[in-house]
C-alpha cells in the first residue's frame, strides 16, 4: 500500500463527506423564503457554495477512484483493519463519548467545576498515553484536583464566571 493509494481512499471519504454536508445545506436552502427586498435572497450564496463543493468533490471522487483501481490494498486494509488501528479508533471514540458526558454534566450545573476539571484532566492524560500505573494514576488524580481547584478559583473569583463551584 503506497501513500498515493491510501490517499485515494481518504480522499474518496473526504469528498463524499463534504458532498453530503453540502447537500444538506443545499436542501435546507431550498426551504428558505424567496427574496423580497433585495435581488439575491438568503439562499443564493449557500447554494453557490454547495455547488463549488459538489464540483470539487466530483473531481476528488474521480481522482481517488482511479487511484483505488490502480491499487485496492487500502480497501482491503479498511475491511480487515489491524488490531492497533481498531484500538486507537476505540480510544478516540471513547474519548469523544467521555467528553460528551462531561459537557452534559456541566450543563446539569450540579457537579462543581473543580471535580469536572480533575476528571477531564485525569482521563485525558491516561487516554492519550501516560502509563496506567497506580502511582501515576494517584499523582494525576491529585494533580488534576489541584489544577481544577486553581481554575475554579480563578474563573469564579477573578473572572466572575457562573459555574458550579465548591469554594
Amino acid at each position, binding site marked *: 500500500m503506497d501513500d498515493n493509494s491510501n490517499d485515494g481512499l481518504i480522499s474518496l471519504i473526504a469528498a463524499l*463527506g463534504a458532498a453530503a454536508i453540502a447537500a444538506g445545506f443545499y436542501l435546507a436552502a431550498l426551504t428558505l423564503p424567496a427574496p423580497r427586498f433585495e435581488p439575491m435572497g438568503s439562499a443564493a450564496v449557500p447554494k453557490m457554495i454547495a455547488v463549488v463543493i459538489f464540483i470539487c468533490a466530483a473531481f476528488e471522487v474521480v481522482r481517488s477512484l482511479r487511484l483505488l483501481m490502480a491499487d485496492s490494498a487500502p480497501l482491503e486494509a479498511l475491511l480487515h483493519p489491524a488490531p492497533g488501528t481498531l484500538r*486507537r479508533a476505540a480510544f*478516540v471514540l471513547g474519548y469523544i463519548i467521555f*467528553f460528551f458526558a462531561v459537557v452534559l454534566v456541566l450543563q446539569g450545573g450540579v457537579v462543581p467545576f473543580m471535580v469536572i476539571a480533575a476528571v477531564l484532566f485525569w482521563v*485525558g492524560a491516561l487516554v492519550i498515553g501516560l502509563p496506567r500505573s497506580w502511582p501515576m494514576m494517584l499523582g494525576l488524580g491529585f494533580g488534576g484536583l489541584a489544577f481544577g481547584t486553581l481554575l475554579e478559583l480563578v474563573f469564579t473569583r477573578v473572572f466572575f464566571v457562573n459555574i458550579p463551584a465548591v469554594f
Partner: protein
Amino acid sequence: MDFLLTAGATLFAPFPMLMMFLGVFLGIVVGAIPGLSATMLIALALPMTYLMKDTDAMTLLVSMYVGGISGGLISAILINMPGTPSSIFTTLDGFPMARQGKAARALALGVLSSLVGGVISFVLLLAVAPPLASIALRFGPWEFFAMVMMALVLISSLGGRSFSKGIMAGFLGMLFSLPGIDPTSGNIRFTFGISDLSAGLSLLPVLVGTFALSQVIMAAGGGIETMESKRVGLRELTGQLRGFAGHKWNMLRSSLLGTWIGLLPGIGGNIAAMVAYSATRSLSKTPERFGQGAEEGLVSTECANNASIGGSLIPLISLGIPGSTVDAILIGALLIHNVQLGPLLIVNNPEIVFSIVMTYGIANFVMFAMMIGFIPYLARLVEIPRALILSAVSVFCVIGTYAANNRILDVWVLLFFGVLGAVLMRLKLPLGPFVIGFVLAPIAEAEMRAGIMLSNGEIPSPADYPIAAAMLAVAVLVAVLPVIMRLRNTALLKRQEQ
C-alpha cells in the same frame, strides 16, 4: 508618526508590558514543545482577551505569535524535532551542528537570526501597510468580494497538498458560518431546529474546537514518546553571540524573502524558510555543506520564518484579509472586540494598528532576551510528556469557551468543531482554509449582495470594475492552472508511451 510614538509609549505601560512578556514567554514555551503550536496557544488565549482592552488583547496575541514561531528552533536544534512547522528546515543544519558539539552556537545563531528577521520585517510592515490601506480605501463591494475570493483560493491552493481538498475545506468553512440570522434579509437560516443557533455560531468555540480540542482528540490512544534533550549552559550560549558579520547579506536576503512570502495569503513560515534555504544554498560556494551543519542554512531559515510574521500582518492590517491561519484568529480577536476590519481599520482604529505593529517590533527584542536567558531551562521543556499538556489543554478549552459568554451552547459547539477538526485532519482536509473560509464568508456574502444591489440585480461588466476583475481572474487562474498542467502532463506521458 504621532500614532506610532503614542502606541510605543502606551506599550511601555505596566499592563501591556506584562502582556507582552507573558505572551512571548508562553509562545516560546509552546513553540519549544513538539506537537503544540502557536495557533493552538493563540486560539486558547482568545477567551482571556474578552476582559482586556482591544490593544492589550492584540499585544498579548501578537507576542504569542512571535514567541511561538521563534520557540520552535529549540527542539529543532536540540532533538531534531521541529517545535512548530516553521522550524522544519531548521532541523536540517541545526541538529547536525548540535551533534557536532556546537549546540550553543546553533542556538545563539538561530535566536539572533530570528531577531534580525523580525526587525527587518517590522520595518517593512511599517513602510508598506499604511500606503496599501490608503489604496484599499478606494475599493467598493466588488473589489472586496474579489479580494476575499482571491485570498481564499490562494490559501486553499498553496496551503495544502491537494488543491481541490483545500477548496473543499475553505468552502465547507464558509457553509458552517451561515447558520443564524442573515444580516441582509433578516431571515433565520440553517438552525436545523436549534433555536439558540439563531444568533449564529460564535467564532471563539469554533476556533478553539478546530485548533485545540481536535489535537487532543487526535492524540487519544496515540501512546507516549519520551525525549531527551541536550543541555546548554547560559555562559556557553552568551559566549557564542559573536562573529555574525559574515552572515549579514544572507540575513538581509532571507528576511526580505520571508517578508515577501509571508505577505502572500496562505503561505506560512515553513514555505518562507524553505524558499530562503533554497536560495541561500543555490548562492553558496559550498552547497554540499548544507544539511551537514552549515551555519548559512540555519541563519536563512530562522530569518525567513520570523520575517514571514511581519509579512502576513501586512494584508491583515491594510485589507482585513488573513495572511495565515494565525492571522484568521487575530481577526477573530478583533471581531470579538467589535472592531471594524478592512482598510478603514487604520482610519477608525489607528491605535490598534500601531499597537499591533509596535508590539511586533518590540516583541522580537523581548523574544531575543528571553530566549538567550531561558534556553538552558527551556531545553528541558521538550521532555514534558505531551499527554500531560494536552489533557490540561482540554480543560482550558472547556472553561475558556464557557467563560466567554457563560453559555453552555458554546461548549457543545466546541465539541462539535473539535470532532469535525479531528475528522478533517484525518481526511487530510486542511484546517487553515476551513477556518479562513469561516471567517471570510460573512464578508464575502455581504459584499457580493451589496454589489448586486448597487448594480440593480445585474452582474456588472468586468470593464466597470477592472481591479475586481483582475483579482477574480487571478483566483480563476490559480484554480484552473493546476488542472491544465495535469492534463498536459498526462497527454505528454501518453504520447511518450505511444
